[in-house]
């Protein structure tokens, strides 16, 4: 029996649990913001249909949010159970960032989620709207802090290393607003809004095709397309800027993403290849000359460093970053096309009758999730062999836990997440199938009924 490697198993476990987790925030960041817009439209226009759409998607939001919470709690402990040396040496830096996430975001979300879900008839309308806003704000603030922590691990700044190897902060501003942070934050938040807009548009298209809840479906499709048409192209620009930033601060990652072995000017754009790290070359390469330099440096003869210019023990394995990046960009291009074609059909009055387009949209609409995962695989695998880039190696960050324990926990997580994810997906599909309730089940009241209060209950034993 081969020896169980706690490092490899911990990496697989963290990749598995964080990949599972990121799907839900990617969805709920966008949904929370959209629910605020729907509620605002309802309050402003008084049209019940906005409230019906909002109530329907609130249920889907609640299931996703619940799964996001439980899978997120796991991560806040895995930093210690599996990466205790990262915690010991980097705790001074990443600990406060994660604590601020709890204090400014998690409590805000959790504190107002109850009112958002259960408070429709218990608080005045504006308080409910305020609660929805706070939940949406919480999702974005959460992204701010966790991406600050992740970006710091990618492009560390504002710290010094003490003699015992422990990192100390010298400048908090530099820690939080480290070189890659603004780009990563913009890229991830845009990705979350896009993922949600794509799904919403797809489900709207599905209702229209099924000729059920058609007015609701048109709102979903219209609002989804309105986001896609400008945000998907903008995301391409943000991604490009993010790439330029990575080339400056993490050149080895870019070399891996592009599968470039040699440092060269007029570097080609490799469309397809099978990178072979052992032989330090690519097989079956299909490339466009000079385009790689143009994209990455915005100059025809810009220089791109190749993997061979890094010592072998400081190179990421290019296979995953190379393919994941191409999947991500491909999906981005599909989103841009869907947004443009859909908007064109809409403007020319043919959107609802173009069944071919609606069918395609239904099928491609979940791709945002794949793009988010692919993007994170680029970012995280591309950072290897470092946990804190250039400072702390992944191999030195792992906990003193035997491989057997990690294997057992990994199997447990796969089993439990499989059941939970399967069930969650099933219940979300059920909610989607059922569609919006067109007559709200409870009468609307402007003011909460003040008799249902603890003090009132205390008076009547």
């Amino acid at each position, binding site marked *: 029996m081969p020896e169980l490697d706690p490092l490899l198993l911990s990496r697989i476990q963290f990749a598995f649990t964080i990949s599972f987790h990121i799907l839900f925030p990617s969805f709920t960041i966008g949904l929370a913001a959209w629910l605020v817009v729907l509620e605002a439209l309802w309050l402003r226009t008084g049209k019940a249909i906005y409230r019906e759409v909002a109530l329907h998607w609130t249920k889907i939001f609640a299931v996703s949010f619940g799964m996001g919470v439980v899978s997120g709690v796991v991560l806040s402990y895995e930093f210690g159970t599996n990466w205790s040396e990262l915690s010991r040496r980097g*705790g001074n830096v990443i600990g406060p960032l994660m604590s601020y996430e709890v204090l400014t975001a998690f409590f805000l979300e959790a504190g107002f989620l109850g009112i958002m879900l259960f408070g429709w008839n218990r608080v005045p309308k504006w308080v409910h709207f305020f609660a929805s806003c706070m939940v949406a704000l919480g999702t974005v603030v959460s992204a701010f802090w966790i991406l600050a922590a992740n970006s710091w691990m990618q492009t560390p700044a504002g710290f010094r290393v003490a003699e015992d190897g422990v990192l100390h902060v010298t400048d908090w501003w530099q820690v939080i607003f480290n070189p890659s942070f603004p780009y990563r934050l913009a890229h991830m938040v845009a990705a979350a809004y896009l993922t949600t807009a794509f799904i919403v548009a797809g489900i709207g298209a599905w209702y229209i095709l099924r000729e059920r809840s058609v007015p609701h479906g048109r709102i979903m499709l219209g609002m989804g397309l309105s986001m896609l048409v400008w945000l998907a192209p903008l995301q391409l620009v943000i991604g490009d800027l993010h790439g330029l930033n990575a080339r400056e601060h993490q050149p080895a990652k870019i070399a891996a993403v592009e599968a470039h072995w040699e440092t060269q000017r007029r570097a080609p754009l490799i469309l397809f290849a099978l990178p072979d790290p052992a032989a330090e070359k690519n097989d079956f390469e299909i490339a466009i000359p000079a385009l790689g330099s143009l994209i990455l440096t915005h100059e025809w003869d810009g220089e791109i460093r190749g993997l061979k210019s890094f010592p072998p023990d400081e190179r990421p394995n290019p296979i995953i970053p190379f393919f994941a990046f191409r999947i991500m960009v491909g999906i981005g291009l599909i989103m841009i096309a869907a947004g443009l074609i859909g908007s064109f059909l809409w403007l020319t009055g043919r959107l609802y009758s173009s069944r071919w387009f609606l069918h395609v949209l239904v099928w491609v609409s979940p791709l945002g999730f794949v793009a988010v995962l692919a993007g994170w695989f680029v970012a995280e695998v591309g950072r290897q062999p470092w946990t804190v880039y250039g400072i702390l190696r992944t191999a030195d960050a792992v906990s003193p836990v035997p491989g057997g324990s990690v294997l057992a926990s990994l199997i447990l997580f796969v089993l439990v997440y499989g059941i939970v994810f399967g069930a969650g997906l099933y*219940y979300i599909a059920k909610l989607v199938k059922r569609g919006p309730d067109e007559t709200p089940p409870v009468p609307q009241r402007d003011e909460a009924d003040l008799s249902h209060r603890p003090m009132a209950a205390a008076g009547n034993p």
Partner: protein
Amino acid sequence: MTGTASQMTEFLPVILPLVWAAILALTVFLYVLLGGYDLGLGVLFPLAPSDKDRDAMMASVAPFWDGNETWLVLGGGGLLAAFPLAYSIMLPALYIPIILMLIGLILRGVAFEFRFKSERSRWLWDLAFSLGSLLAALMQGVIMGAFIEGFAVTDNKFSGGSFDWLTPFSAVTAVALLSGYVLLSTGWLIMKADEALREWAYGVAYTALIVVAAFIVIFSLWTPFLHPEIAARWFTPANMVMLSPVPLATAASVGALWMALNRRQRYTPFLLAVALFILCYTGLAVSLFPYIVPPDITIWQAAAAPESQLFMLYGAIPLLPVILGYTAYSYYVLWDAPEHDAYH
């Protein structure tokens, strides 16, 4: 100026770890209280008289469980931030119970959403809710016991075995904390449930109180024998007098709680159960202070750099009261949210 600055640099590393130990102690306590009634309810869940009662039990915590659990996340994140050495030693040492606790929390957490959406598979989520709650509660008790017993540490790293946490003492603390959670949850139900379910909760509360009282005695007698320092702290004559209010008040609370149950009071049973938790918690703090990784590492040795602790304090001081404020507001407006509100 330089005098003040150097005084500050000497003063901060002493005072900041104390402040953060206090904040974390409060955080863990709030989790034990809020997560406690919440988990206890899950443990009682399968024993409830009817399915209607189970609906009511779950609906009574559905708006709050996420907020309750956030205190646990703050406990983990805060420990990493304020005492990274403690976090990096204890979490690998407690690898198995922590993972099992997390699995339990996942199963019970998703049950809140899934149960109300399922028909045929409702039994499955009932099971996930109760077994998940039971597992999480037991593992938290095990973690508490293992924490009190202490950890093997070499060169600032955990150097013990994977099963060091599994001892007779931690088995006792697991059942003790579980019974405490059940007592809290009966207090919660007595406040919130309708008459029939309330009467059942009174009945369970008597049993839970007897079990809790017995475990407090066992726990109090056993703990001093784990470390001579703990025994010395409680049993030197001067300290015995000074600390005697803790056991005396504990005994008084048990008695008062019994009487409150006899009188069928609505709110005092929960409050007295909380008082019991406060007293036990205080007793534990007296035993362990100032160690954060018993038996050797103090809060000052494990503390994060002063600039990190200070940076967090700037946020924690204004934010914690705001958080407590809106959490209280949420409890107030959703206090008697019916089982089937607009959302389900």
